[in-house]
């Protein structure tokens, strides 16, 4: 399982990367993209939307079905990955790089304490 050390995670298989100040980048993990396979469509929120930790914020679709992606942290959407519209397969090909979903300006830094370290995420997904 590819779980980069420099990221943080959620039990629902999203990753979080600190960019600068209160801004984070998010996406889905290698484990998640592998489970979904064949990602063919992504629906992202609009810039400026307020997200609530744990609430659905995006949808990815494989050939078979649609799946909700949950906001790992609360905050405002500042940027979305427009490339996913034309090339949703980037999520399969490069989940931690070109397959990023969006940036959030987090509104409650205390929530950072609730997300998982790489070790905790590994333990959580292996016991699934």
């Amino acid at each position, binding site marked *: 399982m590819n779980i980069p050390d420099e990221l943080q995670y959620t039990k629902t298989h999203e990753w979080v990367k600190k960019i600068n100040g209160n801004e984070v980048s998010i996406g889905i993990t290698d484990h998640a993209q592998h489970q979904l*396979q*064949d990602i*063919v*469509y992504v*629906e992202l929120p609009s810039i400026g939307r307020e997200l609530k930790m744990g609430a659905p914020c995006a*949808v990815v*679709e*494989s*050939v*078979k*079905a*649609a799946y909700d992606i949950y906001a790992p942290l609360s905050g405002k959407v500042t940027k979305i990955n427009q490339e996913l*519209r034309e090339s949703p397969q980037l999520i399969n090909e490069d989940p931690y790089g070109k397959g990023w979903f969006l940036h959030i300006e987090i509104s409650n830094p205390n929530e950072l304490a609730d997300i998982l370290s790489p070790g905790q995420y590994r333990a959580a997904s292996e016991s699934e």
Partner: protein
Amino acid sequence: MKKTPLYESHLKYHAKMVSFHNYLMPIQYDSIINEHLLVRKNAGIFDISHMGKFEISGDDALSFVQQVITNDAASLSEKQALYSPLCNEKGGIIDDIIVYKMNRNTFLFIVNCANTEKDLVWLTEQAKPYRSMKLKNVTDEMSIIALQGPSALQMLKNTLETDFKYLKRFCFDDFFLDDLSMIISRTGYTGEDGVEILVDATYALRLWDLFLKKNEAKGLRPVGLGARNTLRLEACFLLYGNDMDETVTPLETLIDWTVKFDKDSFVGKESLLEQKAGGVKHKIIGFEMLDQGIPRHDYPVMKKGEKIGKVTSGTFNPTTRKGIGLARVTAQHAMAGEEIQIQIRDNYHEARIVKTPFYKRESKK
């Protein structure tokens, strides 16, 4: 949870196994897109042993079959098959099945896995007035392997050293490979040329392995239920439980041609005649998305802000890389070319009703 005789082989091919109506079945081995395209371009092999199978035999077999199906089995030759709904008294579809005429007084029904128990209860009840007839559930005794794709007949020949091109569509024949007996049937659920092979469950793995061994170099791979669904949808074959159920009659679907009113009697005839005279209120149509949205079962179908129906089946079509689907809409809107919208979560996505099927293989002379 039940397993088919090919279960171990699915694991060997790294299948992702899912629970499918009480069976552990392979949903995909590689990717659904690759498996779909493989069947369109070359050939794939499917385990469909989970399908229900009933043997109907005896002097009354034909009259019984004629009574429970809406299609006409009287015109079938021996070793010929047909597709038909089973309807209830109201004309609602209990199941859609393939009827094989094995010989003068023996028929085999291949039914949907999800409906096996229900059908058995229904057919047992319907069989009561027929004295000289036996209905037997042979589901567990028989496996079915489907070999589908433009190269399927060639691969079949490579494996069995016999050319089955003489079999017309919906015809079948017995075949023996040493001690291994099987039925080769030119049928399928993919819209592609190919065969379905009925074989004793104890020999299924041997035959499956043989096909893969003899044709792996030619590209043959196992294909899962995920691609089976996208293939059937692209070819516009209906799926029971999605596109039809007991609240829907064959006249409201794409299979109105399977109702043969010329027959003396069959269950549901009166109701269906009445519906035919009054006209149907709903129709199943095929549509194509005009943007990137992917339609799914139960999504609302809209026209000028009004709901005109529901998506019954939808998917991303690997061949055209567009969303396609079947929907049940009010009959007045069931016209090719009509612009509609599909509600996907909170948004309306543009779509157009198109002629079905979405895919038709080129017929070879």
